[in-house]
């Protein structure tokens, strides 16, 4: 197995080549953020609130400051004096985004809210000093649930919100009233999903290195979005007055010129999407809170006036699943402290902190009404969605963005005449809601559940009712009722038909009947979805006008003087194997081996800009496309130069195994180094191309059907999964082993979501799951073997790759919960919760009393 040196003629794309990343990682030579230890670094520990909701009367850090091993203690008030607040980003119509500081000085809003920062010579000593800090809190009534948040009597988490509602937005498509009035039946159910947590095995962390000569910051950070962290740190970590910023900007011509160049480039790339933005978002914000008018100019002019932005360096990252996308409050606090002290600082989050505020997700209530005719035809869908975002909105992409992706994706692969969604985001005294692998996934869960409920009510099989209402190839081109265009890449129906061939339903029903006679309860559940990966060009703007600015990924391919091939990506890998898949793409483009390609990522001094970094299943289609086309441009540059060198027509030049030659005459070929030398000696530019890619212009859907068989043990309430099948279609596959790994990893998190994982709070908003003894990550004993079947639907045009990172987690919860309801059919059970631990299973079977 030595595919990395396979000859290029075979084509690497499509092969399960082994991973380039493995050698350093398997030897223990990876470099994760905790492994970075600059000389003389100070170790940080944050003092965090023990109360869910309280005002701070006073804080006394005198004793902590006297501690001999402590270098500095910052109270929230001191640090907030040095910094700007987190601003609203991607303001949406109807949304109020509270502004907040890096630490909390007057009021704490969740257990774990940071109120002070200690820096000492070791983490042990920093944590010792935390115990010497006295804080006098006055407790407020906690807002512990969606019900609390919607109560008119609740204490307000954010003073300027409408009660605790931050977003209340309704959208209708089609004539909802008349469709619901004329439909034969309406099936309604309320579904509730518990709070879950992304839980990468590596927690968050940041090491901020200060250059003693220049004061330049180098931020080593486990981030999915290195450029966003760089810009936000520059914007927030050192507050400057507008006057001094403007003076700096006006007197520094280089700075002024480079800003104008950058602004022109940005507008050329994103102008169209920017024009789609309307003022409704900023208006919603300003109606609630005008302080943005004071803070934003200072923040933006501060960026203009800065000569030196930090460098962000992210190397190996131990997983993220969305949790490392946001810029953390701690990141800004640490940078501000490092700037103030002129000393390097290090913080590695511990697991208790991570379970408390490292990222929560999914806590949503959804009341769903499906209108349909007696012949099974879907007519309309109405959804009332309430999302619990916790206290502080994540930056830059808050929870409310998830509600709007849900709005667009809710109808799924089915035809509807009408659709209505009311989306509310509420604030509670809990840790922050972040994007978690398929952040909109509960639209699929609720839709696929209500379809099963309706199938039972009408006497259809779940698969027949789905097939009857799905878009098929004959319907294409079509559009979702919520806007986005559909083409043949939306092949969900084909994945369901294929799954029905893989799983013999009749045979299963026989087996189920036999088992029931023996007192064993088997169930079969299906779930179908499609996801935008990357989606058609109108996709982002249908979520939020102007969000298209998130859509571009960049790559730069260069051939260096010695002939080596270096590719720079704006993607930020954290387990997805970009170094392997991108090398496969580049090697095919340039006619070289995989080992000849070096990928550079994570260093903002060297990599092209991207707002998002890695997330949203964009690494394959968009990142992969940018890598492909920048390499293709470089190939042409090389061929043009080689044509001169070899005195041949460029059309006749071929490259194979790094040998650049006239077709048919490989013995007289030259190397990349040979060609590079001629170009450089002639004073030309080296081979170098940058490409920004937003997708190939249509389709871009990634689809799947999951089929799950469960066996429920009514003695213990335990659920086993004897068979799990995924039929997925992400178009042409770059590396099947890596795709299978993404699918299986997502399904594993879905198994955890349904059977094991809950970030449960008590009625006082105290988190009850702050260790891995309480928050149960499934082990090898709990995760079933997942069969993965691939369809590879092609669509016209090049670069047909579609993303696959999120789907496993989108399909698994509905497939498993549908299977469990099927298994408990004899008891008339109705699954309305996503979280089904053994006690809940036994309750649904009527074996134990819920009370």
């Amino acid at each position: 197995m030595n595919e990395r040196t396979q000859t290029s003629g075979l084509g690497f794309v499509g092969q399960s080549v082994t991973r380039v990343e493995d050698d350093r990682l398997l030897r223990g030579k990876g470099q994760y953020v905790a492994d970075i230890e600059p000389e003389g670094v100070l170790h940080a520990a944050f003092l965090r609130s023990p109360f869910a909701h309280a005002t701070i009367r006073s804080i006394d850090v005198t004793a902590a400051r006297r501690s001999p091993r402590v270098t500095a203690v910052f109270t929230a008030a001191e640090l907030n004096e040095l910094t700007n607040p987190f601003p609203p980003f991607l303001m949406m119509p109807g949304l109020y985004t509270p502004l907040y500081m890096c630490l909390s000085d007057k009021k704490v809003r969740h257990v774990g809210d940071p109120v002070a920062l200690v820096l000492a010579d070791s983490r042990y000593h920093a944590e010792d000093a935390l115990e010497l800090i006295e804080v006098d809190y006055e407790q407020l009534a906690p807002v512990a649930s969606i019900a609390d948040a919607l109560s008119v009597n609740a204490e307000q988490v954010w003073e300027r919100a409408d009660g605790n509602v931050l977003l209340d937005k309704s959208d209708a498509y089609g004539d909802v009233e008349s469709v619901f009035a004329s439909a034969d039946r309406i099936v309604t159910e309320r579904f509730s999903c518990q709070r879950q947590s992304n839980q990468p095995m590596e927690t968050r962390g940041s090491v901020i290195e200060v250059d003693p000569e220049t004061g330049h910051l180098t931020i080593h950070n486990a981030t999915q979005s290195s450029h966003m962290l760089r810009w936000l740190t520059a914007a927030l970590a050192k507050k400057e007055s507008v006057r001094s910023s403007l003076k700096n900007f006006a007197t520094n011509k280089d700075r002024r010129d480079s800003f104008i160049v950058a602004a022109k480039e940005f507008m050329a790339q994103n102008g169209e999407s920017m024009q789609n933005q309307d003022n409704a978002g900023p208006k919603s914000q300003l109606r609630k809170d005008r302080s943005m008018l004071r803070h934003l100019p200072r923040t933006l002019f501060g960026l203009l006036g800065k000569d030196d932005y930090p460098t962000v360096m992210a190397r190996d990252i131990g997983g993220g699943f969305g949790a490392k996308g946001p810029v953390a409050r701690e990141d800004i606090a640490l940078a501000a402290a490092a700037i103030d002290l002129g000393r390097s600082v290090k913080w590695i989050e511990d697991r208790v902190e991570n379970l408390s505020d490292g990222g929560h997700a999914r806590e949503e209530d959804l009341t769903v009404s499906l209108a349909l005719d007696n012949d099974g035809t879907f007519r309309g869908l109405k959804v009332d969605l309430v999302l619990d975002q916790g206290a502080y909105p994540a930056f830059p992409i808050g929870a409310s963005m998830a509600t709007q992706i849900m709005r667009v994706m809710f109808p799924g692969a089915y035809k509807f005449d009408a659709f209505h969604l009311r989306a509310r985001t509420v604030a509670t005294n809990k840790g922050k809601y972040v994007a978690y692998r398929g952040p909109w996934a509960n639209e699929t869960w609720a839709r696929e559940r209500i379809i099963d409920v309706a199938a039972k009510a009408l006497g259809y099989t779940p698969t027949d009712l789905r097939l009857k209402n799905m878009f098929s190839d004959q319907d294409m081109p079509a559009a979702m009722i919520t806007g986005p265009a559909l083409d043949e890449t939306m092949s969900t129906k084909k994945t369901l038909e294929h799954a029905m061939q893989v799983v013999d339903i009749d045979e299963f029903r026989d087996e189920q009947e036999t088992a029931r006679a023996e007192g064993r309860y088997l169930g079969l559940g299906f779930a179908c979805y499609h996801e935008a990966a990357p989606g058609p060009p109108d996709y982002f703007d249908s979520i939020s006008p102007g969000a298209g600015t998130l859509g571009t990924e960049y790559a730069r391919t260069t051939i260096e003087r010695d002939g080596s091939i270096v590719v720079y990506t704006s993607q930020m890998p954290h387990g997805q194997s970009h170094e392997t898949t991108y090398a496969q793409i580049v090697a095919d483009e340039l006619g070289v081996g995989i080992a000849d390609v070096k990928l550079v990522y994570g260093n903002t001094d060297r990599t092209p800009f991207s707002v998002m970094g890695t997330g949203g299943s964009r690494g394959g289609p968009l990142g992969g496309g940018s890598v492909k086309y920048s390499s293709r441009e470089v190939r042409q540059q090389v061929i043009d130069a080689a044509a001169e060198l070899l005195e041949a027509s460029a059309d006749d030049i071929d490259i194979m195994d790094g040998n650049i030659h006239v077709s048919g005459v490989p013995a007289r070929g030259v190397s990349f180094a040979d060609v590079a030398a001629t170009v450089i000696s002639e004073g030309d530019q080296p081979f170098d191309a940058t490409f920004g890619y937003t997708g190939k212009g249509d389709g871009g859907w990634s689809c799947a059907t999951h089929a799950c068989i469960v066996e429920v043990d009514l003695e213990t309430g335990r659920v086993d999964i004897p068979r799990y099948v995924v039929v997925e279609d992400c178009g042409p596959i770059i590396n099947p082993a890596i795709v299978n790994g993404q699918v299986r990893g997502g399904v594993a998190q879905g198994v955890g979501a349904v059977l094991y994982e809950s970030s449960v709070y008590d009625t006082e908003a105290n988190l009850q799951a702050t260790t891995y003894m309480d928050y149960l990550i499934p082990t090898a004993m709990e995760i079933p073997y997942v069969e993965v079947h691939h369809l590879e639907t092609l669509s016209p045009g090049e670069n047909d790759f579609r993303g696959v990172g999120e789907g496993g987690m989108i399909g698994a919860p509905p497939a498993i919960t549908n299977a469990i309801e099927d298994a408990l059919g004899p008891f008339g059970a109705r699954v309305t919760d996503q979280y089904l631990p053994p006690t809940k299973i036994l309750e649904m079977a009527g074996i134990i009393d819920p009370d």
Partner: protein
Amino acid sequence: MTVSFTLNVNGAATEVSTEPRRTLSDVIREDLGLTGTHLGCEHGVCGACTVLLDGAPVRSCLTLAVQADGHEITTVEGLANGDELHPVQQAMHEAHGFQCAFCSPGFMLSTVALLAENPNPSRHEIREELSGNLCRCTGYHTILDGVEVAIRALASDGASGGGDA
């Protein structure tokens, strides 16, 4: 207060002087600079920090460094023989065992200990033995495959007289 003792890690002896409360994982990572041992939960559940103590897997986050005095410690850095990967490392590579690989040192050391005790475990036994290590990326399938690749490699090495696990 500090205590001084000798720590034997991967066949090399190092004099260590440390506060007695410091964990084996912190001393290995910070004092010895062997950062291949990872800390995932620091409360003994995730298994990322697993090292071998006289050949048996222990949680280095729950072990005090002083407790390792007089014992032989093996970390992930001690597995490969120069450029040549350990059969378990090579097997994990071939099987696409890991993704982010943060958990990998613990899994590989648990596997080395398992195969030393039972060179031919069943798939179920592998699952059971490795259930003390958490992975959030893979769904475990490829890790279990990797153990099976290692079993075959070690068996054929053993037949030809090689193998060191």
